[in-house]
């Protein structure tokens, strides 16, 4: 076996009382794509952050080409040829696309930025990647998906990088861009770079990865070549047991309408959307990124006010732009971007879980602590949130666990209608199944679910009906049996 390009061995790291890594190991070889797998909170991001010099390991050794190294800052890691696309979106909002891509490596003339060259290079890079983004646009005017693409382009712009790390790069981008990304990854590998790829979309691993490493509870539990395993085996290694079927679907739709949209629109995002959601039904909404689905859910929920059309819940019109009214009629909304619109990062897991329900948990304005605590404990247990205590700050949870907190809060108040926007983004297979089971049970008990997702598998696996949105209009409605990959893509494109 050849000497690995990078080898991290016996890395330990704990945050306060939380042991994030107990025995982190990772070996990378040049020219290969290495999938780093593991459940939420297994320590994947932590070991990568240590590699990048964000955290100092408590113990362990890192060797690069056989030489022991220790990075104290990302600067040093970059200088040693390691670049990363971080799990959470992280651009500089008020700089342009090109400035973001080449941040830290901008073409210069002395102390000055060589802007013509900068934009030329950015143009060239973006078009070689096939990303249709204006390099002069300011980053904060882009969609989340485009921002994610910029993050990817940024890592790829480091031509001198020998190791490129992708921590869940596809969680926010569309299928087409993901395909393009895979091509680029293969090219990079072919050029002799080592690629680390973290994802919770297992299909992707089998599509592009050569090697795999599985983490569980902060330690490497398995490593090898992807060719030697299959999906079931991988899942087994990740969650320490077998899993039967990835989706759970036991609900049966009724004919009783609970949510009706007629001609709903809000310029410039979407217009003339009609739909009817029935009790016991899971209605999938599919569309390309940027097709206006998030805006539609925001509007139904009352975060935004529609320009036209009507929303009826249980036959009664819902006052527009009124979140409280929506909550009162039994709507609940799991937003797409948990950091921006879902969580209070600076607050504890407990206060996040109970936040939307405090209005029912008080007497004379005073919070009823026992009742609150019961609700929190139930939510933590119900969603299997991995946290040392409800007092832990949400900021310190792993991405997937953060998603579970959002989910836990939205479902704790016994809603009747769930609006879900990318409900399993960044969630591991085990947790995904729990969420699916929850959705299924929820619908079986008579609840109704409107689920927006960009994951075709998920849409197909869970929906009773699928609505396809294209440029802000509903263009197709497919019953469960007619909804397959091909027809959905056809309708959406």
């Amino acid at each position, binding site marked *: 076996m050849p000497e690995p390009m990078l080898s991290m061995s016996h890395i330990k790291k704990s945050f306060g009382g939380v042991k994030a890594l107990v025995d982190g190991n990772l070996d990378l070889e040049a020219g290969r794509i290495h999938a780093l797998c593991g459940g939420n909170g297994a320590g994947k991001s932590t070991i990568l952050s240590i590699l990048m010099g964000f955290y100092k390991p408590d113990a362990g050794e890192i060797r690069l080409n056989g030489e022991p190294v220790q990075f104290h800052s990302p600067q040093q890691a970059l200088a040693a040829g390691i670049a990363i696309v971080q799990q959470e979106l992280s651009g500089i909002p008020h700089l342009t696309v090109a400035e973001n891509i080449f941040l830290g490596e901008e073409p210069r003339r002395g102390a000055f930025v060589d802007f013509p060259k900068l934009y030329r290079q950015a143009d060239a890079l973006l078009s070689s990647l096939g990303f249709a983004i204006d390099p002069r646009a300011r980053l904060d005017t882009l969609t989340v998906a485009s921002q994610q693409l910029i993050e990817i382009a940024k890592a790829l712009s480091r031509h001198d990088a020998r190791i490129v790390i992708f921590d869940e790069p596809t969680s926010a981008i569309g299928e087409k861009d993901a395909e393009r990304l895979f091509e680029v990854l293969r090219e990079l590998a072919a050029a002799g770079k080592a690629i680390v790829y973290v994802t919770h979309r297992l299909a992707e691993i089998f599509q592009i990865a050569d090697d795999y490493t599985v983490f569980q509870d902060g330690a490497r539990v398995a490593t090898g070549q992807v060719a030697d395993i299959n999906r079931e085996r991988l899942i087994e290694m990740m969650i320490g047991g077998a899993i039967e079927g990835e989706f759970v679907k036991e609900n049966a739709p009724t004919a009783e309408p609970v949510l009706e949209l007629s001609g709903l629109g809000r310029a410039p995002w979407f217009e003339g959307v009609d739909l009817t959601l029935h009790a016991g039904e899971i209605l999938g909404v599919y569309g390309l990124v940027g097709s206006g689905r998030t805006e539609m859910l925001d509007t139904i929920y009352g975060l935004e006010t529609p320009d036209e059309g009507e929303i009826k819940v249980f036959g009664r019109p819902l006052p527009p732009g009124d979140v409280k009214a929506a909550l009162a009629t039994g709507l609940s909304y799991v937003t797409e971007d948990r950091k921006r*619109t879902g969580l209070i990062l600076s607050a504890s897991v407990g206060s996040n879980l109970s936040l939307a329900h405090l209005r029912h948990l008080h007497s004379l304005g005073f919070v009823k602590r026992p009742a609150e605590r019961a609700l929190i404990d139930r939510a933590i247990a119900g969603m299997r949130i991995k946290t040392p205590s409800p*007092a832990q700050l949400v900021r310190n949870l792993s991405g997937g666990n953060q998603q579970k907190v959002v989910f836990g809060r939205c479902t704790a108040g016994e809603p009747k209608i769930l609006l879900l926007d990318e409900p399993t983004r960044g969630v591991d297979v085990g947790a995904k199944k729990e969420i699916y089971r929850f959705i299924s049970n929820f619908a079986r008990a008579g609840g109704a679910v409107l689920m927006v997702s960009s994951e075709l598998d998920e849409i197909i696996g869970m929906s009773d009906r699928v609505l396809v949105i294209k440029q802000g209009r509903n263009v197709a409605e497919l019953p469960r049996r007619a909804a397959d990959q091909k027809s959905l893509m056809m309708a959406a494109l």
Partner: protein
Amino acid sequence: MQTGSRAGTNPLAMREYGIVFAFIGLCILVGALCQLKVVQGTWPQNAFLTVNNLLLILHQISVNGVLAVGMTFVIISGGIDLSVGSLLAFSGMMAASFATRSPGVTAWAGNYGAFIPIVVALAVGSASGALNGWIISRFKIQAFIATLGMLMAGRGFTMAVTNGNPISALGPEFRWFGTGKLFDAIPIPAVILGIVFLLAWIILNKTVFGRYVYAVGGNEKSARTSGINTKAILIWVYVLSGFLAGVAGVILTAKTGSAQTAAGTSYELDAIAAVVIGGASLSGGIGRLTGTFFGALIIGVMNNGLDILGVQSFYQLIIKGSLIVFAVILDPSRKLTA
């Protein structure tokens, strides 16, 4: 294991108590320096470590403490209130105009005892605070600018009330709130401070409103998604801050016996300092009233101790500036917030 609360694991406990250590350290330092004077024979006794001096410090921090309580809510909600000093002056002036025995300073001036002046001060403070909150939440402008505007305008109103003159010769009923003593020992301003802290602590930690304040400051959009009327919360936060500026106005006016147009100038800085020393983050969502209390105490002990020790005023400034920074650096919780 406990729920919903911020304490729990080890680093979090440090976070809770770091400021207390800083405070105790400061007291030991000042106490030791005073003791040195006793040992040297310069002083008959340690003037710092007496019950009377402790009560005096409480008396002296009462105004800043009350302002800092309101500021804690504001800062946790993600804002800042620069107008408290001006609103203190404005409400104090209005109160004084209803508590003076020298007629003629305003058209309505007179001595109406204590109740009416106090109600007027609290109403004036709250109304101005409501205006702050309304502007901030309605027009979504930065709290810094909105309250900077009120800092100026409030000072202007203060002067406009009496055409720029002070109001003095205040009635004894009113002055009791600044100079009276409970059980002949505890200054009334200190008692007021205690009550304000207690009530505010209950509101912030035990009520739904308090939770919402943290939520709005932590992430306004998420708070809205949870069905919180964030605008209303913001308005109430500034009303509270204005109300407490009114309370502070009553205390200061009653203490000095005169409503001055320049009263409270730059008091906002001390109030913000107390809150930030107490562990709050100016980006919102983080802060504690116990922290603020110790923050105000630290500032008070510093002022008192340096005066007692007879430190020259420019060294006093240098020492105070450095100590504030040290108190924050040494607070071990700091590392977690950054």
